[in-house]
């Protein structure tokens, strides 16, 4: 009898959970679907207030990393996955633009700072945030080894820093690719391979992803690895705080590459009007002020106050950049050249 009861109870609860998750409620007319990558995080309160003001419910749909997102948008351009997309970055942007994924929309908010990062003058993509990929350093570990903190990419090839640097593979990691682009930008297409050959001779360690490089190999993170130099983000030190709330690590601001993330209204959106309003929302002070804490990136809007812990970790003033079309055209070839130099 008891067994029968258990069985019935299990069957009932199973049926209920199944029906709950299979048949979720659907929003009404005032709905905008925001397609984004899986690192997108936001403050629900901001979206709730937006709904109270405009009557628009924003439905967030994540689809893989920035590369996966861009390619999905390209594949589905005839029948888009939503109304507005966020998260195409400057390493993938020109592919999306060439394929006509986005339509023009010049938000009135775009003149308040975001325009500085515009990719071209067609206003199909608007810059929402940027994050600099830089070499991070654990000063305490370097001091213990009696080595000064390096400053530039050139320093990293100095025998003083032999076996101290860990980087991500550009073929499998987005910060790894950004760092490769930083070296292409600083040394030029002719010499960057030579630079990497020198890094190799200097004992650079290559791992496949940021998680392994930062949380396992880097001495300044919780993993307490062996290497005091790692490719990460300018904002990472803001999360590595000591007892007094001061960052224990630092970013080398002359080794950075600027990664900008864009949003745009999708070509063929069902709710173009709503999509434009959501783009305005992404540029609003409310949303932009939450961007650092939620996504570890800097807002593109000017005059937005950064959280206290970020005061010590400013963005790099002169981070390297490359024109978006060059990146799209050469990405595969540069990775091959990198592979030849480092794996050789």
């Amino acid at each position, binding site marked *: 009898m008891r067994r029968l009861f258990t069985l019935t109870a299990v069957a009932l609860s199973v049926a209920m959970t*199944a029906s709950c998750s299979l048949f979720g409620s659907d929003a009404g007319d005032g709905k905008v679907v925001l397609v984004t990558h899986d*690192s997108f995080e936001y403050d629900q309160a901001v979206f709730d207030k937006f709904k109270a003001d405009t009557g628009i419910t924003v439905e967030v749909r*994540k689809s893989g990393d920035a590369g*996966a997102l861009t390619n999905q948008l390209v594949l*589905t351009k005839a029948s888009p996955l939503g109304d507005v997309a966020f998260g195409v970055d400057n390493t993938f942007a020109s592919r999306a633009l060439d394929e006509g994924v986005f339509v023009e929309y010049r938000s009135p908010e775009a003149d308040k700072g975001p325009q500085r990062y515009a990719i071209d003058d067609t206003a199909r993509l608007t810059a929402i945030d940027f994050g600099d990929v830089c070499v991070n350093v654990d000063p305490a570990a370097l001091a213990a080894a009696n080595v000064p903190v390096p400053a530039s990419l050139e320093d990293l090839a100095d025998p003083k820093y032999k076996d101290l640097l860990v980087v991500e593979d550009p073929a499998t990691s987005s910060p790894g690719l950004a760092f490769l682009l930083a070296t292409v930008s600083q040394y030029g297409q002719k010499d960057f391979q030579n630079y990497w050959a020198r890094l190799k001779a200097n004992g650079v360690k290559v791992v496949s992803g940021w998680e392994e490089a930062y949380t396992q190999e880097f001495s300044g993170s*919780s993993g307490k690895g062996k290497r005091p130099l790692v490719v990460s983000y300018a904002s990472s030190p803001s999360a*590595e705080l000591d007892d007094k709330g001061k960052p224990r690590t630092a970013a080398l601001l002359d080794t950075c590459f600027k990664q900008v993330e864009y949003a745009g209204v999708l070509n063929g959106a069902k709710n173009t009007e709503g999509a434009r309003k959501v783009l305005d929302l992404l540029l609003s002070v409310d949303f932009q002020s939450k961007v650092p*804490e939620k996504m570890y990136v800097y807002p593109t809007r000017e005059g937005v106050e950064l959280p206290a812990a970020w005061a010590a970790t400013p963005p790099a003033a002169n981070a390297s950049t490359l024109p978006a079309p060059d990146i799209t055209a050469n990405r595969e070839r540069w990775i091959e050249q990198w592979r030849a130099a480092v794996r050789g």
Partner: protein
Amino acid sequence: MARGRSRLRLPDGTGPAVLGLVPLGFLAVFFLWPVAAIIQRGLGSDGLVRVLGSPDTWSVVLFTVGQAAASTVVAVIAAMPVAFLLARCALPGIAVVRAAILVPFVLPTVVVGLAFRSLMPDGGVLSIVLANAFFNVAVVARTVAGLWSHLDRRAENAARALGASPLRAFTSVTLPALRPAIGSAAAIVFLFCATSFGVVLLLGGARYRTLETEIYLRTVDLLDLSGAAALSLIQITAVVAVLVLAALARRRRETAMALRARTETTRRPRGGEWWVAATAYAVVAALMVPIVALVVRSVSTSDGWGLDGYRALSGTGFRGSLQISGLDAAVNSLRAATDATLLALLLGVSASVVLVSLGRSRAHPGFVDTLDTALMLPLGVSAVTVGFGYLITLDALPGDLRTSAALVPLAQAIVVTPLVIRMILPVLRSVDPRLRQAAGSLGASPWRVWREVDIPLAGRSLIAAAAFGFVVALGEFGATSFLARPDSATLPIVIGRLISRPGELNNQMAYAACTMLMVVTVAVVLLVERLRVRSVGEF
């Protein structure tokens, strides 16, 4: 005898044929169509020739097959003592061992990869093989134990009484009887290892590349659809070849056997059997090494030990890194996995019934094998191929499922169904036809025969398949990360999110969430396996 057969034949052929339309239709819509569409889109240009002609491609193929074969061998060898322990030994704590070996399956590959990386810093190929085997020991152990626990001990005992050594009795009596289950499990493990993605990417970097990682990088980073399509075709051809070989090896071996209740077949180990049991415990202990390493990380803080990560589970991470709390994610996980398991059981059982009925109804064996092979295909096709295929096909269906949360259990069921089939089919095929004929001649309708004879005999395997399917769905990462909404994120997604953020608390919370996932897994498996269906002993 002949009369009994002819009476059963007509219903066996027609009823199940209708039933068979359900899994086949599902497979056609949610697998074949999307995969065909994405490959077709890539085939237009010269990609196929370019990729096939490149020596690089063939070294990737060679490495894929080589590492998968090595991983399969390691997994089978390690799993056999464990299967013996689960199937033949009456020792305290067996239920916990049975549940615990499933834990690797739910752990996100990034976490396991990191654990192997810290245990074997310069592991290379060896670490890839061991990590793949780590994930798959449970597949072999549980599939084989499922059949082994129903095997009649008397044949073995007879061999021993006639003077065979224990080893001889095992190799000449038990092993041949187990071969269908071993073959099934090995085929599945081979497919899992050949398409293993996260582990290879993390432990192999760009140095060791497999078809799966190449297809992913070409599709997701380079949008080189023609290159990806060419590689997908190679992958599918290889998978079909493996499946056909497995089907040929299986054919005629899945014969009738006198299946017994598990209670009749277990006892305390005797003499040399203790060595086998000890080996099994050693394998289980080895499986626990990376797991213990994760638990240790969850309580390590910058100044000693602490439970901060566990306390953080009720919140949303360091400065709100997440949209939902760790506990919400656990609830989401349970829900999605339940949906997927129910769906997969429905599809898997109906497909198995069809395959068995067709086999008995003297349908052409080639046809049955082809069907069987087709149903296994989802295990061997890259998830990203299927995922991108969905994007360009499913908008044609009413309700645009492409970004619907309902697609998560559907996609998971595609992966779980073949596993259910492989676990149930060997047992159903082993049911003695005389039992069914007896039931038939006593006046039972064909459906009643299934209900009263086959299903109870396969009962344990059914429960085991449900538990296993649940665990696979619980740990599913690829499809879920593509489809889950922020508020419906599952635990593996949350762990992946946390571990990709800087900050000590995020890291501790990620490992604490892993521990929670393991605890939930073991609890659910223990609970499911307590639900005993009426067993053979009650006949």
